[in-house]
């Protein structure tokens, strides 16, 4: 074991405290760490609310009761978890090959655009058995195309994909806004809304709840990623490139093709999320369809350590936060607090990783 002079808050205290590198933690250890981080983050939120003079415990109780303790709450939580999981997969699968997909938000919007265009203009009166698959394919293609556009500058000229994929979000949202406020606006209303889809373009939902078939899409996508990564040769290649791009190149793995392909698949997940939102929830194209699912997807994927099962679980938790956030809005707390909690959880998880990678040892007296 090596002794490393310690840097604590910028001050070097030699001989008293040392930080030693450990072999890292097991998956179980990381899971526990994540749970602890979430608990600490929620506790921090509690203190924060108390300082701001809110009845913090009752706020939390209402939030979690609203999200998890009623039939309606649970179904709404799952409704939010669907796009979150698809966006989490869109970020997580791309990250397996070492790509930062910050563009899930824009890919989602391109999905809403393509699906709505198919439903409104391409197949306005076709039966569901034709319309729904067509919308799905259109959204997959649109999302994938937007993802490829974001990663093409990387493949061709080594341009960092973080900024290109992010810039494309703004462009996609402006494009959808243009359609809703302009040519696609329903002339019957003064609001920026498209015409309502025909019944054949709406995803069937479960009983009286709003849970729709998109849940199945998300679960299939998750299963696909697991099988791909665990059981195929290509999955092995993807992880090899993600582990060390240059070494993989020397081993003869085609890098550019894999980067483009993985991004196309990842981005198509976000496109499906967009299709599921317009087809399953809104039944039309309207502004502000995503309250930032693509960005939450980044946090979800990271907290889940990119594993699809973790992404599913985290999506349900974050979906609950969103639903609970609406409850808090009723209490006079704006929904911004949901993003604060999400980011705080991320901060504590990042911090906890330090304590799983290093061990702090306090020694008494001089060495």
């Amino acid at each position: 074991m090596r002794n490393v002079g310690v840097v604590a808050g910028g001050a070097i205290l030699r001989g008293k405290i040392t930080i030693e590198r450990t072999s890292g933690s097991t998956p179980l250890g990381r899971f526990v760490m994540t749970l602890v981080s979430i608990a600490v983050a929620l506790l921090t939120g509690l203190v924060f609310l108390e300082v701001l003079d809110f009845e913090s415990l009752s706020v939390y109780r209402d939030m979690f009761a609203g999200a998890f303790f009623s039939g309606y709450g649970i179904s709404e939580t799952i409704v939010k978890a669907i796009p979150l999981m698809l966006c989490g997969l869109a970020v997580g699968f791309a990250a397996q090959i070492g790509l930062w997909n910050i563009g899930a938000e824009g890919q989602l919007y391109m999905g809403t655009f393509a699906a709505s265009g198919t439903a409104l203009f391409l197949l306005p009166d076709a039966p569901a058995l034709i319309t729904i698959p067509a919308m799905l394919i259109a959204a997959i293609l649109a999302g994938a195309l937007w993802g490829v556009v974001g990663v093409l500058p990387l493949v061709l000229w080594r341009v960092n994909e973080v900024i290109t994929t992010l810039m494309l979000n703004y462009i996609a949202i402006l494009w959808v806004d243009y359609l809703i406020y302009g040519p696609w606006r329903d002339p019957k209303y003064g609001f920026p809304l498209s015409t309502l889809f025909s019944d054949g373009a709406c995803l069937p939902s479960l009983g009286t709840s709003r849970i729709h078939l998109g849940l199945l899409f998300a679960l299939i996508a998750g299963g696909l990623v697991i099988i791909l990564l665990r059981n195929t040769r290509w999955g092995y290649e993807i992880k090899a490139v993600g582990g060390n791009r240059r070494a993989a190149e020397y081993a003869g793995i085609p890098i550019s093709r894999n980067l483009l392909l993985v991004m196309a698949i990842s981005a198509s997940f976000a496109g499906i999320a967009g299709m599921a939102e317009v087809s399953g929830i809104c039944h039309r194209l309207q502004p502000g369809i995503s309250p930032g699912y693509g960005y939450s997807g980044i946090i979800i994927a990271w907290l889940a350590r990119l594993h699809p099962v973790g992404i599913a679980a985290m999506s349900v938790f974050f979906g609950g936060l969103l639903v609970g956030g609406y409850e808090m809005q009723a209490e006079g707390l704006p929904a911004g607090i949901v993003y604060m909690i999400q980011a705080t959880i991320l901060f504590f998880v990042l911090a906890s990783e330090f304590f799983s990678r290093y061990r702090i040892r306090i020694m008494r007296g001089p060495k």
Partner: protein
Amino acid sequence: MLELLIASSIAAATPILYATLGEIITERSGILNLGVEGMMLVGALSGFALTSLTGSFIVGLLGAMICAALLSVIHALLSVTLRANQVVSGLGLTIFGIGVTSYFGKSMIGVPAPITLGKLKLPILSEIPFVGGAFFNHDPMIYLAVLLVPLCYFFLFRTRVGLHLRAVGDNPASGDMAGINVSAVRYWAIIVGGMFCGLGGAYISLVYTPFWTENMIAGRGWIAIALVIFATWDPRMALVGAFLFGGVDVLATRFQAFGIEIPSYFLRMLPYIFTIAILILTTAKRASRRGLPSMPAALAVPYEREN
């Protein structure tokens, strides 16, 4: 007409110039901070709120700097002390900034800016026809931003502390051996970067579009990060990049004045398309001249002392 276009491009460039200079200082120390957008939002809101609360512009600006710097300390703690992944930590900072400003800014929406910053006509210079109106009839914060360009350059390339900062960004291990406190330098580089972003944000909410709305930075923080690459981590080039961007921004909003009918949504896409284009051009040029020594060699690599 052209005089007015240049003058408004300079105003549009200013918030981005502040943020780009700040990020250059941070990245020169080897730390990538993707939280610029979040820090600018925090600066915009806190500057706006404090100015309306106290009635003092100066207090507002100081508050914006302090609040944005406080946010940046989270990144410093995570990326320097705890050696966390800087991309994730910076993204977290931006998401936190979006949340915290939407939470605290609710009561500020629709409130008009309390004070407007008057124009400061520079004596003699502003008398010059055309040039005077375009370049020397601006508010003080614009002059400050331009003044910061040579100051930052001088600081980075002509002072001992600046040398230390660059050394830590290129090779922290040898900097450490030479007796430089790597962590302290990086902490300060992050904090100063945060202060600059706070100023840039406050300029938007107090002067450029004098009111507060959610997410009013609208991606300018990310554009600043792209401009750092365009500027090859050089403050002088940051000036060029910011003004180029300001020009595109202004052209986009004034296209109709030239009699060209394009829906405004497409024009508002221009700055983002321009950012991608400029990034491609810069990176491709750098790749062709292999190994230009402009990028801090240890950028985004956590430093760990080995004995």
